């Protein structure tokens, strides 16, 4: 089909468009010279300088902590929300709930950020909590939009699952909670893992919302990067960028490779079984 080759061309062109800037970034992180314009030879000195920058390093640590915690809480809430939306046919406020759980997916960050900050300020005014904004408020913010994404991923898998399996487990004597842990959870596990990874990535990457809701002394990595980048190109940021690209690529390809291998092993086992017959 003529259409086919056009779309294939577009696919590869689009892919090149997506990857080229990142590729160039990685190359320039090894540039001896500070300037992007001049290539002065290969050097890893900027890598060294980055790791010595304590401000950036502590921001990295903080970001990883918040991302880890908020991904976990996002997935927890995401599982509950998915269950509510998919398995409970009717409940009071389901339409409102459905709206609230999908809106964060599209809501502009500045709105989420501003509105949450104003909420925290109002809380502090009325009740004295939270005393100071920082890691806690960032965690709350990230959990809130993270659970929206987690719900999309998990509920999709939950819908695909044959619900009568859960009924069968109950029929065989397992109480509802046991059914969830012994039957449902193992079957939605891949979705739970990808939801966690997604929420983790989004938290790690968020700059706008974190800027609004953070407090003194609690800067996250993206906030540091933004303030640095506003001042122009910086080789340290190039290094950071390259490291992030490497890390994400490594994790992604590992996950993909492992799941491909597991699948191949399974199919091989099945084929072997049939051969034995």
């Amino acid at each position: 089909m003529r259409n086919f080759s056009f779309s294939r061309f577009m696919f590869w062109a689009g892919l090149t468009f997506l990857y080229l800037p990142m590729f160039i970034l990685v190359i320039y992180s090894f540039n001896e010279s500070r300037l992007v314009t001049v290539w002065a030879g290969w050097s890893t000195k900027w890598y060294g300088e980055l790791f010595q920058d304590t401000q950036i390093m502590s921001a990295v640590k903080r970001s990883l902590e918040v991302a880890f915690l908020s991904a976990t809480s996002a997935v927890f809430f995401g599982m509950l929300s998915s269950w509510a939306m998919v398995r409970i046919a009717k409940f009071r406020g389901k339409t409102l709930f459905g709206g609230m759980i999908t809106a964060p997916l599209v809501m502009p960050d500045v709105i989420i950020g501003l509105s949450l900050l104003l909420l925290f300020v109002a809380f502090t005014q009325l009740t004295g909590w939270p005393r100071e904004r920082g890691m806690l408020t960032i965690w709350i913010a990230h959990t809130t939009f993270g659970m929206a994404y987690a719900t999309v991923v998990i509920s999709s898998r939950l819908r695909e699952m044959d619900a009568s399996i859960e009924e069968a487990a109950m029929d065989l004597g397992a109480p509802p909670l046991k059914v969830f842990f012994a039957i449902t959870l193992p079957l939605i596990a891949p979705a739970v893992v990808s939801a966690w990874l997604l929420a983790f990535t989004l938290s790690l990457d968020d700059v706008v919302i974190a800027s609004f809701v953070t407090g003194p002394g609690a800067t996250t990595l993206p906030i540091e990067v933004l303030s640095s980048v506003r001042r122009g190109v910086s080789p340290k940021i190039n290094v950071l960028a390259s490291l992030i690209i490497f890390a994400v690529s490594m994790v992604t390809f590992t996950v993909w490779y492992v799941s491909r291998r597991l699948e191949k092993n399974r199919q091989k086992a099945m084929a072997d079984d049939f051969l034995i017959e």
Partner: protein
Amino acid sequence: MKLSRLRRWSGETLVVGIPMVWLLVFFLMPFIIVAKISLAQSAVSIPPYTAMFEWADSRLAVIFDLSSYVWLTEDTLYFDAYVNSIKIAFFSTLICLMIGYPMAYAIARAPAANQPLWLLLVLLPSWTSFLIRIYAWIGLLKNNGLINNFLMWIGIIDDPIQMLHTPFAVYLGIVYAYLPFMILPLYANLVKHDQSLLEAASDLGAKAFTIFTRITLPLSKNGMVAGSMLVFIPVVGEYVIPELLGGNSTVMIGKVLWQEFFNNRDWSVAAALAAIMVAILIIPIMLFHRYEQKTLEEEAQ
């Protein structure tokens, strides 16, 4: 018997209740507070806005201070910013659609075993930092950046072309960042298209182009709408891209809001800007939600 009934009821209530309460407090309530603060006036105080309720001499006064909204109408800057934001969002959505559709189509038509790999390749960039990727373009688009240097080096141009801090850079940045968001729902839709439908049409004599326009395109409507909303709505309120890649001529409402809040410390005006933005976006958001529901209903059949 009663106890088991109670336990079953409370089990479901918890499952629904816990996330519901969280969302009501941390998602819905903030909007109400935004509305409240937009109806106040900025003040030098902590917090930096006037109170809505005043209690004096046994009188409770509720003050709806509309001065922020009035302020917004006085300067055309704000109105222009809204219009500009919508315009940019609209056109960049269109560009994403033009580029993203064929890409999604290619993946959906690839052999099933390879599709996860292609999808992965497309989504991988979006998992690396959004900020970093926009930053990457700064180095490329600067006057003494890579692209200009390359073009001058091979002799096509003599003076650098102004690319950074132009509307062009903003569009480029938006499409670059949001393309994967357009591709994913489109792919999810296209991959479900029944091949036998297309084969039947071909069998009945339809040409490839007709098949595409009469069958594939209409069937992918849900995917197109979902993808478009996933791009359009957040782009209206974008801050990072206009901040880093745009110049003073590209005024977007997200950037204006940020400046009002952080630079001018005018919380009330920022809140008013947010309130108006939400009002503008409510319909697209509901459209998005509607199409999500529709897609799910179709899947259920």
